[in-house]
């Protein structure tokens, strides 16, 4: 599973290890939210991780993810260090549970799928 994390999350997250999971961080500069998803799809990623549930607020990102058949995961925390920590701890769950086009919330202790955004 190839996971792209948004630029808001520290680079240390790319050193997180889990069998069958590769994590990369967006460093390609200033693109809008939909472009991020489209680019991730084009680059072969299976999931995009963004920071804060506000990123799901206007529905554009979730819609783009569904249309691109790429999974979208938003961390509940807006603290970048916490987000990196929680993500590193849930990589196996992401590999096993997350499917293309789905939208998930990453909490401190669990991964929760959202039916509607």
């Amino acid at each position, binding site marked *: 599973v190839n996971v792209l994390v*948004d*630029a*808001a999350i*520290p*680079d*240390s997250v790319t050193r997180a290890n889990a069998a069958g999971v590769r994590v990369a961080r*967006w*460093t390609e*500069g*200033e*693109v*809008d*939210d*939909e*472009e*991020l998803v*489209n680019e991730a799809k084009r680059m072969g990623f299976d999931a995009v991780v963004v*920071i*804060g549930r*506000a*990123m*799901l*607020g*206007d*529905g*554009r*990102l979730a819609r783009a993810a569904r*249309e*691109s058949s790429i999974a979208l995961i938003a961390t509940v925390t*807006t*603290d*970048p*260090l916490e987000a990196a920590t929680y993500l590193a701890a849930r990589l196996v769950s992401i590999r096993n549970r997350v499917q293309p086009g789905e939208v998930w919330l990453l909490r401190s202790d669990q991964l929760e799928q959202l039916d*509607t955004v």
Partner: protein
Amino acid sequence: VDTGVTTDFSLLETVVWALSRVDTESSDAASSAFALVLDRLDRTRAIEDYDRIPDAVGHLPFDRLGDDRTVIAANLALAHDMYEVVAPLAHLVRAGHVQTILLASGLATHPGVPPVLKDLVIEHAEALGGPLRDLALSRLDPLHEPSTPAAIVDRGARWFDRSNAFPTVAPVVVVDPSAGPARDRWRLIGELHSAGVIVKRLPHEVWQEPTPGWLPRSALTVTAETTSRRGRWLATGGSLTRSMRRRVAEAAFAHIDASPFNLPPQPIGVERLESVATYEIFTAGAIPNSEVQFFADISHSTLSKAAKAFGELAPRPGLSLNYWAFSQLVALRAARYLARIAADQHKRVAIAELASEMLRLTQEHQEVPFGVTSDGSVVADRDGVLVNLKTGQQAMGDVVSLVDRIYEPIILSERTVPGLLRPTKLTRVHPGIAAGLPTIVGTRIPARAIGAALRDARNSKMADPYEAVLDAYPDLEDVDYVRDAENLDRRILATS
């Protein structure tokens, strides 16, 4: 035929010169002459020529009904997007000139042409009746089912994926005409033309459809979808650079044989906000209370009142009220500003109510200047008439202030509120980036993430917190970015 074309004579000027000398008694010779001129224009067209079009077209001689020059000029417009011919063409359509009605029906679906021409064609096509009516309507609407062989062939030549007759050699770019200054659209189209692209306009009927069924899979659409049901933005702001326009053309060529192609495949609207010379529509974004309070300089209780006053345009249904669209933030900021000016006139204005009115203005597709009159009434400029927003009546007082720089730094209650688009030297706000949070320029990193990372570094007793943040975000070039983001983060925290 001698058209008088010389190398040091602008092609456009040549066209105008030749049009003015057409002998309407010898239309065959005239047609041959213009075929040569148009062929030359086709082969050598350059963006510099397009720049001259507005002035040149103003001299085109539309003086006689049924004149061959009308047909030639309209064809010229069709071939080269000279939309300035719309006004004289509309005049001839109104006069019921059959050939002009048919020509105008083809032109009316081009990008940049005011919808009024289409309405006129529809009105007068009805009077034509029979096959001519069918032909005109087929040209106007890709969904119209033609009943005559001529109309079927014509529609196939004009609308993609209809009768499979549309040329497949040149790439197709569809331009959404719902917003954006006509001249900017026209410049974009000119560049696309010069790159060899076929440009089509998205008809009004299908604005609401994200992917109209009649679009070919490989068509590139220049548009940026918003959450508003009112349509989409044309992604051509005044700041759209020449290289970005080229990028559209390159993308079109790159996908000429592509299979499924999602809209918008190549969003180019990121730079749009940099040129807010006009009042724009921004319904994207999910901005938290803290940022809204900071940029609009209003209290939490006023925010709660505004959420109720916004009614149907209230913050996102199904989500916490903590998230606001960019247009709502703009409305609140404008309302706060006007309320301060009204207070100077010894008149109290309820910010939440006023913001609700402002919000409705942000839903419109054009610039709507608004301000406060000397008696404290809040007014909007509607076609040159100042209308009282509360009563809907024409305002009588003198306007003491019209807001035209709502995005710039402004003084509100006791402090200068930073600019909305560039709150600090190294941060920016765009509703489409990080849901509208202020981010560091050139990146997708929210300023507040940097603030939080710095606090984490300090809490962890890092020797140099700034270096630690630079290590965590290697795409930041130097510590100036960190300090600038930290400064903004502190100010937002202090406000909320």
